[in-house]
């Protein structure tokens, strides 16, 4: 059954990703991106990583995409307008460059390569111990320091977002007034 699901999710992901690029309306792009994130969650389940799959759906398809949709609607973006030959030439150049990189990837994959030695945690064992438990123990054991640094990154993200959304050179109260005055 696994290959059937793999092909199904692969079709979902590739079609969704292509539509993200091709759709003119940013809202449609965002919704197709949700489809891609959902199919990636499916891949993570197939790869015996249910915790990551849940985080993928909750954080990416939930939080991050809601933020995107919120900003698109806040800025009231319409369909992209086509501005003629200049843009068409650039689009053609982009696709050509993409196919060039794809050709390089195919050439690289054709060479001989092998994966390194296997670790001590086969999926069956991790499943028996509980995937989330194993990841939690790794996270608060070997990876405690990176985990703490991640919390710092998130703090910087929060502070940065607040600072950026304030108007420059004015205090918080005045910035609030400025937002209310804006049409």
């Amino acid at each position, binding site marked *: 059954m*696994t*290959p059937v699901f*793999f092909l199904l999710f*692969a079709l979902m*992901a*590739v079609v969704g*990703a292509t539509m*993200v*690029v091709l759709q003119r309306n*940013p809202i449609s*792009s*965002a919704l197709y*991106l949700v489809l*891609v*994130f959902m199919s*990636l969650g499916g*891949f*993570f389940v*197939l*790869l*015996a*990583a249910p915790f*990551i799959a849940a985080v993928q759906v909750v954080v*990416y398809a939930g939080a*991050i995409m809601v*933020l*995107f949709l919120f*900003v698109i609607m*806040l*800025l009231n*973006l319409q369909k*992209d307008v086509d501005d003629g030959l200049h*843009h068409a030439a*650039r689009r053609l150049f*982009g*696709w050509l460059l*993409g196919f060039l*990189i*794809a050709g390089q*990837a195919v050439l690289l*994959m054709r060479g001989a390569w092998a*994966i390194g030695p*296997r*670790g*001590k*945690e086969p*999926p069956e064992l*991790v499943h028996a111990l509980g995937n989330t438990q194993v*990841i939690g123990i*790794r*996270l608060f054991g070997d*990876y405690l320091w990176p985990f703490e640094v991640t919390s710092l*990154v*998130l703090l*910087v*993200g929060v502070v*940065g*977002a607040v600072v*950026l*959304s304030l108007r420059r050179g004015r205090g918080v109260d005045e910035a609030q007034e400025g937002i209310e005055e804006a049409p």
Partner: protein
Amino acid sequence: MSLSWVTQGDVPLEAYLVLSGILFLIGVVGVLVRRNALVIFMCIELMLNAANLAIVAFANKLHQTDGQVFVFFVMAVAAAEVGIGLALIVNVFRARQTVYVDEVNLLKG
């Protein structure tokens, strides 16, 4: 790469890597082709996710959970990045009334 895995049980690592590469390339093409800063940002998220897929596939085939922990970190950094990036785009829109990257060209000589 042979396709015998479709009828047999197990999906090989190569299939996941090829898919991850395809998704990454679509992301690259999106960044090159689109002019809407928000869609470019979405394509960057797409590339991050393609890399995540490759990492989890390697973690599974190499019998390690380190890859899953790393993907967790990548997701946390991506969440912070989206918060900052969208705040920047909103600021650019406030200043220039546009989100098209080729109309934001004040630094162009």
